[in-house]
């Protein structure tokens, strides 16, 4: 949102994320609102925002690899599972503090992600998508069959503690999750305007040309997978300690597909798009969850609890509509809106 008449006079201004004093105001008030939210929001809303924030972290990772680097990963929730289990194993079996386990689980997930991203060196596009489905299945299978992960029973990670203060409720975890989300968003926004981010975009747009220009494809693709899975792992760790019970049912293929769907709705290759997509899909799901019992009462053929199936169908229908009518996602609408604000009262032709 930049009004007409704001000009960039040097490179620093050109690449600045926060450009005008209005931006600063919105940013500071937004952050205050974010952190003051538990004082007036209901417990349900706080849990919902927690869920949104964790999804945002996962989807940001996916945005880096899929939206910016152009390598589609259908295995993001498996890497989230790796992070969740790594964090649980570190805290439960080795007694390491949550504050150390959180970054470590991200690194573990990132390393697994680099191994899982190896097929990207050979194939891309749809083939890579299938390869990541295979990676997803293998990771989940390993988690179910290793002794250290607790198999089908899952694990029970403890709540984080700081001194004698335990983050054992949703509104207390809210501060950790939101802080991590803000830091990760800032990091992602910075990453994509750095040389690494520009290299990712070059690889996405034309990998052959990027290689000719001197971008190391192997290094950047694996780095992209590391980043994406690092994000997934961090989110998984937060999820594990928020839920305090994890099992493989929370990280199925459908969840991975959901994150891809969020990117489709939000728009590929845009950090604000992640927020739009996550909020849109999660809110839609909540609306379906609330309305489906009433629908079930009105239309008896829907059965007693149609929420899961109606949620899936609505999600699929939304994806079809977006792919058909708005393939560039909500982020594109946002860009159009920003442009029209800048040149107001003229119209975009």
């Amino acid at each position: 949102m930049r009004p007409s008449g704001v000009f960039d006079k040097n490179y620093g201004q050109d690449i600045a994320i926060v450009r005008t004093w209005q931006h600063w105001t919105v940013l500071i008030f937004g952050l205050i609102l974010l952190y003051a939210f538990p004082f007036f929001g209901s417990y349900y809303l706080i849990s919902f925002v927690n869920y949104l924030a964790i999804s945002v972290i996962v989807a940001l990772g996916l945005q880096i690899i899929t939206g910016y680097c152009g390598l589609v990963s259908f295995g993001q929730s498996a890497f989230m599972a790796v992070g969740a289990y790594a964090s649980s194993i570190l805290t439960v079996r080795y007694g390491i503090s949550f504050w150390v386990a959180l970054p470590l689980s991200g690194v573990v997930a990132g390393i697994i992600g680099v191994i899982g991203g190896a097929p990207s060196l050979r194939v891309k596009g749809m083939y890579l998508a299938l390869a990541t489905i295979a990676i997803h299945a293998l990771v989940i299978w390993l988690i179910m069959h290793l002794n250290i992960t607790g198999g089908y029973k899952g694990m029970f990670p403890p709540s984080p503690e700081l001194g004698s203060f335990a983050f054992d409720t949703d509104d207390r975890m809210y501060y950790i999750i939101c802080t991590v989300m803000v830091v990760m968003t800032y990091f992602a926004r910075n990453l994509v305007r750095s040389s690494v981010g520009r290299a990712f975009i070059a690889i996405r747009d034309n990998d052959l040309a990027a290689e000719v220009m001197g971008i190391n494809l192997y290094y950047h693709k694996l780095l992209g997978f590391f980043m994406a899975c690092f994000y997934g792992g961090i989110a998984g760790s937060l999820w594990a300690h928020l839920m305090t019970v994890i099992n493989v049912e929370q990280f199925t293929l459908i969840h991975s597909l959901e994150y891809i769907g969020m990117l489709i709705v939000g728009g590929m290759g845009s950090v604000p798009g992640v927020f739009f997509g996550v909020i849109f899909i999660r809110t839609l799901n909540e609306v379906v969850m609330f309305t489906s019992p009433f629908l079930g009462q009105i239309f008896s053929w829907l059965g007693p609890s149609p929420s899961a199936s109606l949620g899936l169908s609505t999600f699929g229908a939304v994806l079809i509509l977006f792919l058909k009518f708005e393939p560039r996602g909500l982020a594109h609408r946002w860009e159009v809106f920003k442009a029209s604000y800048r040149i107001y009262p003229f119209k975009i032709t």
Partner: protein
Amino acid sequence: MIEFFQLAITGMMIGSLYSLVGASVVLVYKSTHVVSLAHGQLVAFGALAFWIFMAQLNLPFWISLVPALMITGLMGFFIERFALRSMIGESLFSSFLMTFAIFLFLEGFLFLYLMGGSRTLPPFLPKGNFAVAGLFVPVDQLISFGIAIILFIVLGLIFKFSWVGLGMRATAEDHNLAQSAGISVRNIFTSIWILSSMVATVAGIATANVMDIYHSLPYIGITGLIVAICGGLDSIIGALIAGLFLGIVENVSSGYLDPLVGGGVKDVASYTILLLVLLVRPYGLFGLKRIERI
């Protein structure tokens, strides 16, 4: 050794079902350059439609087969008309995402119908075992195996020799060029979706013969996709061989490895093979070497 051959034969029978699902994916790719995830749902819905006519309405086999084929053909028509028609000329990947959206859309309806339960088809093929040299082959599976082979031969001949098949292959090359050469790309899209939905239905009925219709049956579509990629996306004979091979490997590996690792090898065997194929021969065993290499 006899155990190995027994496992292999059983796996081959299952593999013929995978080949059929793979064939429907290959059909769509070969004629429209769209890789479809949605066929897993068509498999499940075909089996379900057949179940409704056969088990609910107590119709005989042949009479319930026709409406089941018609229903899934209609579904294929609608999928094409409302979702994939707008994807003509788009990249391979965006149409793949479209089929994935269709998969989720239909998945919800399948959930809604099954409600966590499962449906079992009444036996409609002759039961019993057929013994050769100490190996047992179930007769009904042998029949569905034979049907699969016949379907494969027919499809292969259509693609190789008929004018329609030629048009379909041309469309797969390039939508624009095919359209300007006088081929109606829209008609090709419609007809191939109807045809492949019917093939998927046959696969679904044959699958429902050996296992229940339950909520994760559509994931056989992913297995079909794996078969199609392993065999080469544009090779019908590749789908047949890869499907049989995959079935054998799954069954043999789970027969020998399950006791060692505690079960579940069957679920990952096909994925492991997929990864190996993608790493070694990304264009599949029988596909054209046209995939973009990096």
